[in-house]
């Protein structure tokens, strides 16, 4: 008779509440339960209080009610239906397809950028296919704009678009300013270094709201009234209502024109790729910049000459109080843009400086030692390494800048918080409007940090 293992012969009768696993699981469950209960009771409490005070709640007001107030800056928003939906589906299909392709290549230990066929498939999925769809169905895409009367939901969306517009341009130009100033701060030229130092200290140490007011009133005070506008013929009209430009309206040759521009970009991509691979193989260098510029300008110009002008200009005209019919850059947007660019530029400059200074100086000396020009040292040695250190703090700064756009309400820029405030007052749905505003900011921030984290993992050192 086989002997039973010892631990089965004697099974100690541990009570359930003294069982380690059970106890730890119970703690976790208890904690999770109390958090869930807390959230639920807050929610139920708010619901109950709203009901007892006779306050309506729910989100149906967003699309049921007509809003009659006017928003000063609106833009057309494409509707995801018909051609627009088709394009969206094809584009996201392309993104997913490319991602699957890269996973497939990774599993086979192929570096995707080295394989001609894979690169061509990716370009086809990401650019050519969506481009063809847009080319053939682009004219069916419908867009809506906030025009009185619209729904409150459309008002919120317009506020969001204004926030995104301001945030997008501020991020890009703020980063460029920060990069330039950050590098200039380390210049061996005493004056350049001093000036950029002064810029950094001034922009970083004055509260953003004050800077916004300063630029707003500085802008307003210098600009002339409408009747005495500064004009560059009819192309550029500057007054204290803003900068007004002619509006471009596409003609029949607009689509081929844009298509060749995209084609030029694809060709540039292939050319740059060819040059890089050739240099890796033979060490011989070919120019990239000038041929690219020639392609980008040349191809569309040829189409222009063959098919006629791709767009006509609609000139603004003075009617009563102001110029109508053009594109207007408002003083509110300008003041917000300038102050956000300078403010975030100051912070990013310090991030860039710290990133560069973290690189061992020997690397720079070595790069100079083999005879690279300063521009190449920067481009090939310093920035690629500094990038790894810059990106995490840069992400935080970008998130901050997006949220700082909410200060626009102080100078009358109709961003999300400002429009939300009006809707809140007119509709009375304060909880819903504030909740929705918070949700929009959170989604935008999460999207930005998702992209930046993805990029961050790409550029980090791969240690195995």
């Amino acid at each position, binding site marked *: 008779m086989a002997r039973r293992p010892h631990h089965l012969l004697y099974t100690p009768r541990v009570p359930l509440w003294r069982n380690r696993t059970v106890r730890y699981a119970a703690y976790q469950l208890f904690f999770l339960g109390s958090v869930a209960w807390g959230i639920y009771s807050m929610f139920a409490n708010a619901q109950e209080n709203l009901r007892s005070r006779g306050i309506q709640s729910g989100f149906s007001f967003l699309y049921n009610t007509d809003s009659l*107030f006017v928003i000063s800056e609106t833009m057309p928003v494409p509707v995801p239906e018909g051609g627009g939906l088709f394009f969206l589906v094809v584009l996201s299909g392309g993104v997913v397809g490319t991602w699957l392709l890269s996973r497939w290549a990774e599993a086979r230990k192929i570096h995707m950028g080295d394989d001609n066929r894979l690169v061509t498939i990716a370009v086809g999925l990401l650019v050519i296919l969506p481009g063809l769809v847009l080319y053939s169905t682009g004219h069916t895409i419908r867009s809506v704009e906030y025009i009185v009367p619209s729904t409150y939901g459309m008002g919120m969306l317009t506020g969001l678009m204004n926030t995104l517009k301001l945030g997008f341009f501020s991020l890009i130009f703020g980063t460029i300013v920060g990069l330039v100033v950050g590098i200039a701060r380390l210049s061996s030229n005493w004056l350049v270094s001093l000036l950029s130092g002064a810029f950094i200290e001034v922009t970083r140490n004055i509260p953003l709201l004050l800077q916004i007011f300063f630029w707003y009133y500085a802008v307003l005070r210098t600009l002339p009234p409408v009747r005495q506008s500064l004009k560059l013929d009819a192309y550029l009209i500057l007054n204290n*209502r803003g900068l007004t430009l002619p509006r471009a309206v596409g003609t029949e040759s607009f689509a081929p024109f844009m298509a060749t521009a995209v084609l030029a970009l694809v060709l540039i991509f292939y050319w740059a790729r060819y040059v890089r691979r050739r240099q890796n193989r033979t060490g011989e260098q070919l120019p990239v910049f000038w041929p690219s510029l020639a392609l980008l300008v040349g191809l569309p110009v040829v189409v222009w000459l063959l098919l006629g002008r791709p767009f006509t200009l609609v000139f603004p005209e003075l009617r*009563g109080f*102001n110029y109508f019919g053009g594109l207007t850059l408002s003083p509110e947007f300008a003041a917000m843009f300038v102050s956000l660019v300078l403010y975030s530029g100051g912070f990013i400059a310090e991030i860039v400086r710290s990133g560069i200074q973290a690189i061992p100086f020997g690397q720079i000396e070595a790069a100079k030692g083999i005879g690279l020009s300063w521009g190449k040292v920067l481009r090939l040695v310093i920035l690629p390494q500094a990038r790894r250190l810059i990106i995490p703090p840069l992400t935080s700064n970008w998130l901050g800048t997006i949220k700082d756009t909410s200060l626009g309400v102080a100078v009358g820029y109709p961003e999300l918080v*400002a429009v939300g405030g*009006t809707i809140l007052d007119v509709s009375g749905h304060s909880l819903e409007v504030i909740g929705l505003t918070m949700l929009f900011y959170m989604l935008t921030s999460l999207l930005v940090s998702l992209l930046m984290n993805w990029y961050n993992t790409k550029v980090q050192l791969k240690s195995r």
Partner: protein
Amino acid sequence: MNKLFATLSASILLTAFLSTTALGGLISDIQSRGYMKCGVLNSYAGFGFLDAQGKYQGFDIDFCRAIAAALGTDLRYTNLTGKTRMPAVQSGEVDVVLMLVTETMSRETNLALDYPAVNFYDGQAYMVRKNLGVKSALELNGASVCLTSASTGEVNTADFFRKHGMSYKPVIFERIDDSNRAYNEGRCDVAMGQSANLYAWRATLKNPNEHVVLPEFISKEPMGPVTRGNDRQFTMAVKFIVHALMLAEEKGVTQANVEQMARDPKTDPEVRRMLGADGTLGPDAGLPKDFAVRAIKAVGNYGEIFENNLGQPTKFKMQRGLNALWSDGGLYYPIPFK
């Protein structure tokens, strides 16, 4: 808004129950106390402000003076804000509030307040630069308007322009100062505010004559003294005093001639009854017999109060407009004193 009202009225009720003022006898309370407590503004040019000597002056202040004089008592002022004025009158902190409070249905019902009489009719209006050549708010199509966020003005403007098939470009600020400054810097063609507020603000601008307040009212704002809702005798007394000042203007009774008219047996019989020369109108209302004489002697009739504080001799140069007597095309139609 409803929630705010609910919290506000709850706290008011609490203070009201805790306060020790005897119900129903505010006039005798004031008279035995020896002074009336008037809630006012101290920084609203023309209506309630402190002059160079630190004394309260203005249109609403004169009404405080008239009421106190009619009751035959001294007067003490309490400076209040928009948030504190309603609780103050509810709790008995002040006897009457005179600070351009607009009468609305919800204030009378939810806050249990009384509006004895209107002493100033106003409405939200627009101000523009004179060189635009605009004569009427109906010519403002396409104008840009400086507004304050979450104000009634925002909604009133949208309604007004829509009603008249016009478009406009709003520039909406968080605070009224910023909105005013932006108009001043030329950002907007149009500034909006209560008409009287616009006149008072215009007078403080660098060149007041370059700006003109357009005649159209965008909203209706009937304003007047506010009293507690549970003392009918005092509320009626305030009403009679305000109406006496208006009837005095209608019948030509002025600060200068009031005593002589009260003595003259040939005076209009209604005026004699109002001034207490005949009948018992005053005592029946719980007021001194000569309450109207005292009030008019203190500050003049309604027309004199308006002229002295807001009219042609002042920097505001305000027109009577709606605030004229019915016989002059205005809205004041004093009750018969009989």
